[in-house]
């Protein structure tokens, strides 16, 4: 897909909220399946599982929930899973920063394969976190505690590694999230350095943005990262309880702090619970809208932004509203800001 010359940003309205406590607890990451299906990776201490959910949410809370995988070290189980990705045939790829492996499951949860082992050599991991596919279908992995990025074939054959510990340009400190765009540029959420770094496919630094803080273009432990097909970059800003949106050059254009409303399943649950409804009447209800401790952010092919709202047990969804522009509709970049009236 070719990026448009420019886009008219019409807005980024809130769309909906999915899930609730009991069914989508501690959503760490999500991936997309067919027919509006979502795979929600749920992780907390002692719990690791994948919930199958729908963008259409669920009408009523039921015990007949779809999902698979559990906490453990056997094949197909996870201890500290971080990312989930949908790959060829709808297979799912899950990173686990404790067992130091990448696991491949089919879309019904059956174990297919795994690769990785503890270590700091080629083909080894110390806490793999973010995973992403490159344009060739290889897997790029944040090898977090080794402070580096590694590339593998989809079958786990080692291809490449770059990065080392530090805070200078190109160096990494416990990187968490990763994304690769259609040009094979690699975007890394550099967790410990509170910044994003962009590398080309040889591992050379192309761009860096962000610094420590809570203002514009500032982070408190960036976790997940995604890039849409316009080149816009979305970063989950864990400690600031928000998601920041940057254009392809790394300029912040938007922030998402949360607009949650009651999901369909939550509404129906609350209709049968009188006491919580009374408590909502005297509590500070506004707090309920905000994102809490996001660990991931994902954007689908329809430009819907999915924010797994980790400590609120739900997913908030936004819809990018835009018009693509051609050369006549979008002026050349300005070298300097201007105060001319336009």
């Amino acid at each position, binding site marked *: 897909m070719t990026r448009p010359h420019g886009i008219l940003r019409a807005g980024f309205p809130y769309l909906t909220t999915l899930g609730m406590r009991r069914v989508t607890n501690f959503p760490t990451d999500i991936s997309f399946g067919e027919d509006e299906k979502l795979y929600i990776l749920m992780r907390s*201490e*002692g719990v690791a599982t994948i919930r199958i959910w729908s963008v259409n949410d669920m009408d009523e809370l039921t015990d007949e929930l779809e999902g698979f995988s559990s906490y453990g070290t056997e094949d197909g189980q996870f201890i500290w899973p971080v990312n989930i990705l949908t790959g060829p045939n709808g297979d799912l790829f899950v990173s686990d920063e404790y067992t130091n492996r990448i696991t491949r499951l089919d879309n019904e949860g059956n174990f297919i394969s795994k690769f990785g082992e503890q270590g700091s050599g080629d083909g080894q991991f110390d806490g793999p976190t973010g995973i992403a596919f490159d344009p060739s279908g290889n897997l790029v992995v944040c090898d977090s505690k080794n402070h580096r990025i590694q590339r593998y074939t989809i079958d786990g054959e080692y291809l490449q590694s770059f990065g080392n510990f530090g805070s200078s340009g190109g160096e990494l400190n416990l990187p968490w999230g990763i994304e690769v765009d259609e040009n094979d540029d690699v975007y890394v959420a550099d967790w410990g350095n509170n910044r994003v770094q962009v590398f080309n496919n040889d591992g050379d630094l192309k761009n860096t943005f962000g610094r420590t803080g809570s203002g514009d273009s500032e982070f408190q432990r960036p976790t997940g990262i995604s890039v849409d097909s316009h080149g816009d970059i979305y970063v989950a800003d864990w400690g600031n309880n928000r998601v920041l949106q940057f254009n392809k050059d790394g300029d912040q254009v938007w922030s998402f702090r949360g607009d949650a409303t009651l999901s369909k399943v939550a509404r129906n649950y609350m209709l049968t619970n009188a006491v919580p409804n009374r408590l909502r009447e005297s*509590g500070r209800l506004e707090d309920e809208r905000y994102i809490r401790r996001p660990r991931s952010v994902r954007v689908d092919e329809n430009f819907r932004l999915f924010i797994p709202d980790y400590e609120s047990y739900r997913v908030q969804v936004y819809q990018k509203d835009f018009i693509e522009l051609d050369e006549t509709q979008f002026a050349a970049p300005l070298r300097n800001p201007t105060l001319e009236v336009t």
Partner: protein
Amino acid sequence: MKSDRKLVAHLMRRAGFGATPSELDRLTSEQTYDEIVEDLVNPERFNEIDMSYVERYYTGEPVAVHVGKWLYRMANTERPLEEKMALFLHHIFPVAWGKSEHGPSLYNEINLFRNVGMTNFGKILLELSKDPAMIFWLDNNENHKDEINENYGRELLELFSMGVGNYTEDDIKNASRSFTGWTFRQPLSLYPYGHHEAVFQFLPEDHDYGEKEFLGQRGNFDGNDIIDIIVKQPATARFLSRHLYNFFIEDEVQVPSWETIPPKNPEAIEELSTAFMESGGDMKVVLRTLFTSEFFKESSAKPKVKSPTELIVGVIRQTGEFSKPKPGIHEFAVTTLNGSAIEGPLAVMGQRLMNPPTVEGWHTGFEWIDSGTLSERVGFVEKQFSDPNKPGVAEMLSKAGTLDDNPEQLVGRCLDLLGALTVSDKTLLSLNTYAKTLSDEKGNAGVHNLIQMAASSVDYQFA
């Protein structure tokens, strides 16, 4: 050596959770005893633990997860006395998860203790009186100007500051009137989107602004005034000093007996009380007085049974198993979080952190010990030291060296590596006897056994 190794080890066990061999090496070679105490009472000289790093790995709603995070902090903090004071305040101002099951209030209360524990006792009591967990635990949310609930007012005087015999029933009533309207705003419910914090709220329309008489003084008192008066009382100084003595120096009888049984060391209580009164309740001054006193330095010879928390945190500091986050630290509280919960060693030993049994807290000292808990304690320590690959155990093995034809020296080195541990003559004889049976062929396995035996001794159960 700038300071005495055994004395520093004693200090670090009581003011913190014990020192590793390399920490003892560094402290004793670089600092005098008084300099070490100054560092302990000035925790701001050291970095706070990076909780973003801890919470990157440890997450979850069950209280056991939060107990696990606290254990991790205790084991890895660079501010051991700050963390020990949080535990102390949890002992004397106990609030249990069992009543409310509102997790954030409990975790925030421990944070509160951490933040104020080394400030001023008046500030501690004031923040405690505004703490939603305490307000709910002792029903001050039900203390209205037209319908007083005396629960908090009573315990504030009886258990939290002065002790029985130093106030009247009218003082309780008027203290309670002064705290009317001190409540918290209703937090949102757990469903559908998880817990939200509770926040203190003062409701002026529900506060009794009338004149009150409290401990012989008259005025239109509110909670602030009541606490100001309490902190100026010699009874408060004595009561808190006895708590500190019991927690840091020597096992005393339990609090309900304090009215009738005098302190074991009245001179020490007097010294601490004087420091409290002269400083206006400055906890740093009181703690500095305590740790530099002769009675503290002599207290290593006095029985002080480790609480289950002290025992467990001390062990995991020494084994180094959780020097970085790894799964399973919650298992010290609850062994499974997904399915039927089975209580972990903390609870089996009698201390469910964040869930104390009553408003009196835990009965301490030798009441920690019965045949069941002693067996659990010894078995726990033996098991924790059984893996020679744990970093701390591996360090001990590398430093312990080999037999060298001198079994007694080997025993001495092993005891030193366990925190300059002092053992009874009987234990020492047993260890020496075992060491003499070791041959060089047994190599590390024999030395490892020796370390395990020493750690499994009754002597190790004392702080």
